[in-house]
């Protein structure tokens, strides 16, 4: 019945594999030549990769040291605290997705099912159990978020605000040796855990600093403007590694002798100070995009300078630059790898110690490919999810 109704497009627009191939792969002599070269490159790369991954590479090194890569030297009997902290985050994630991202099913499923997907890796039974719990908690959170009304959103935002302190508190512990949560020194934090904490702390603390610097750079008071410009340009002109070295070697000198701060904290300070300068430039871009009429309207309504900034300009400017902020987050995540050079045991630092084990000498390719994979999956995943959510939520345009 319906068949008779379908109208075929004209012959030239009909799609067919052969037509498509001729148009897109062999349009001209040059095209054909390029296609053949491209095909050779793909064949060569794929063949080389598959042979290496499945026959040459010895993945035992990764499987044995998986725990080291994820949490470093963190004591195993205390690992449950990290899982609890993760479960809290997962609950919040599910909740937020249920409240704000009702239509983005794909992103929701991907995020909530991610822990279960991870069980395919050779973790032990204990982590597998926890991973499944994570997904269950996430789904419960999602269900609550979906059914509960708008009232919940305040609580969820509050939950996000306290999530980092809770995470750090659980990671560090707060009771002496024999309590339920003995303190775990930062020298034992490592692997992905350390990378993650450095990134999150760096971004969160650099945010207010960056906004202040951006406002300072646009200030009408020359002293403040000049100081902001000086700071931003100085930091942006030097490599991150010098900032890390400065934090490790010179920060203790800058402080009074009775104050000592440990090495992880120094690295966090370095990430914060560095990232703030870049963030300031991004925020400035957002501020510049706000039309002058907004300022004038706010003044006409009787708002003073501070109120104008806080209620009118910043909300709009920050909304505009959310995609850029995600990009910055990813950049900081990738950049924290440099702490390995100043001797901390983040993912890259752990890789060095793993390669120093006598059992696994000479397996650099396997280890670094695995680490690259972690960085890649997380960076790509973050940028992909943020794009999806941006489209769904209409962030960044209005």
């Amino acid at each position, binding site marked *: 019945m319906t068949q008779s109704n379908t109208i075929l497009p004209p012959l030239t627009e009909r799609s067919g594999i052969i037509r498509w191939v001729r148009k897109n792969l062999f349009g001209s002599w040059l095209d054909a030549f390029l*296609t053949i070269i*491209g095909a050779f490159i793909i064949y060569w790369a794929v063949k080389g990769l598959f042979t290496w991954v499945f026959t040459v590479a010895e993945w035992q090194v990764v499987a044995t040291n998986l725990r080291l890569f994820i949490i470093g030297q963190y004591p195993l009997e205390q690992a449950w605290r990290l899982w609890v902290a993760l479960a809290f985050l997962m609950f919040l994630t599910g909740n937020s997705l249920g409240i704000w991202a009702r239509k983005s099913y794909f992103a929701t499923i991907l995020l909530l099912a991610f822990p279960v997907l991870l069980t395919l890796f050779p973790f032990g039974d204990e982590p597998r159990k926890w991973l499944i719990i994570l997904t269950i908690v996430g789904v419960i959170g999602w269900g609550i978020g979906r059914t509960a009304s708008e009232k919940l959103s305040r609580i969820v935002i509050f939950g996000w605000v306290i999530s980092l302190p809770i995470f750090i508190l659980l990671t560090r512990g707060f009771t002496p040796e024999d309590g339920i949560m003995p303190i775990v020194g930062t020298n034992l934090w490592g692997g992905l855990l350390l990378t993650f904490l450095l990134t999150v702390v760096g971004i969160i603390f650099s945010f207010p600093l960056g906004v202040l610097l951006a406002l300072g750079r646009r200030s009408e008071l020359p002293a403040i403007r000049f*100081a902001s410009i000086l700071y931003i340009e100085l930091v942006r002109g030097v490599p991150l*590694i010098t900032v890390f070295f400065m934090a490790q070697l*010179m920060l203790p*000198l800058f402080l009074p002798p009775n104050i000592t701060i440990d090495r992880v904290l120094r690295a966090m300070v370095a990430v914060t100070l560095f990232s703030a300068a870049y963030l300031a430039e991004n925020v400035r871009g957002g501020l510049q995009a706000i039309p002058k009429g907004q300022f004038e309207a706010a003044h006409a309504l009787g708002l003073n300078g501070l109120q104008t900034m806080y209620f009118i300009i910043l909300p709009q400017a920050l909304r505009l630059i959310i995609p850029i902020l995600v990009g910055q987050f990813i950049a900081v995540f990738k950049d924290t790898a*440099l702490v390995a050079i100043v001797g901390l045991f983040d993912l890259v630092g752990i890789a060095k110690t793993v390669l120093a084990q006598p059992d696994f000498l000479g397996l*650099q390719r396997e280890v670094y490919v695995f680490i*690259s994979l972690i960085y890649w999956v997380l960076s790509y995943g973050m940028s992909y999810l943020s794009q999806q959510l941006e489209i769904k939520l209409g962030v960044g345009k209005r």
Partner: protein
Amino acid sequence: MQESLKQKRITAFWRDERILNILGQVAFILILLFIASLIFQNMRDGLARQGIILSYSFLSGISGFDISESLIEYSRTSSYWQAYQVGLLNTLSVSIVGVIASTIFGVILGVARLSTNFLINRLAAFYLELIRNLSLLVFLIFWYLGVFLKLPRVRDAVVWPGDIFLTNRGVGIPWGLPTDSYPTFRLILLIGIVLSFIVFFALRAYSNRTGQAPLTTLWTLLTFIITAIIGWLVLPERPLTFDIPAVEGLNISGGKVLSPEFMALTSGLVLYTSAFIGEVVRSGILSVSKGQVEASHALGLNSFQTLRLIVFPQALRVIIPPLTSQYLNLIKNSSLAIAVGYPDVFYISNTIQNQTGRAVEMISMVMLTYLIFSLITSLFMNWYNQRIKLVER
């Protein structure tokens, strides 16, 4: 009435915005200065406890360490300052090679990403996505430990066409050795540069006079190349003899041997930065509206002319600012040489600092060095940007 107006004009100074502004700034500066002096005081005291007085005079002391590769005369009896210069030149050479190579590769990637050929397009897209989500440090270490140090030993060197020797001791490439006629040849090259400048200005004058657009860059380059070839052929003796690398015992002899550290650093930086440059080039070309292309076709320009005279100049304006920041990133990222053991300025300053304990001095020197590099690059690119910028009324 009059009195009240007068009173209004004389506002109390704590409510006068102009005065408040000035006072606020003064307070701000005072607080900054106070913090700075506090930090400086702490630092001096801390250093004094270690028995160090802030001074750069230690730089003239004898370094006592070896540097694996150097462009200038250096030995372990040279001074720290000379060691620093070696590092400076090594950073410069990596940066220059890196900027040139990643520009070429990045432009190719950007154009490939826009290709109508499905396969090429996808291949470039895959490459960009792959590289842009990796951590540069891991990437560099992988190239060093996973690729260049895993090459076969010198005895079993892999030889690529063009006499390129791949070994775990470095990559040997043919290299020209100057002969007696080399100074004359250099003179000819100089003449070539002068000639090509003449051609350049003549063509530009011609273009300004007639409104035609001759292939200025091409002819300028051709003039230089033709002069060089003529010089090469005319001289009785070849100005350069090619020294081809060969395996000799445990080492490569002859030619030029590029160390695994240098190769890992440059190839890692180039492959990484070119992915970002590719994206910059792509967005630049896409920024030229389709109407421009259609209009130029309507005016009878062929596709090469359209690209050269319409699309490229407009795309360049969008490309230059982000390209500048990519160049700056590359220069700053070259400090990751420390991870692969290439003696760049940061690596050497770190060595000096380990030997002398002069952390404050060395870190400040390195920071200043990179700031100067960044400043010079920005100034040059800004000058270029001014030149090509859209001239508006």
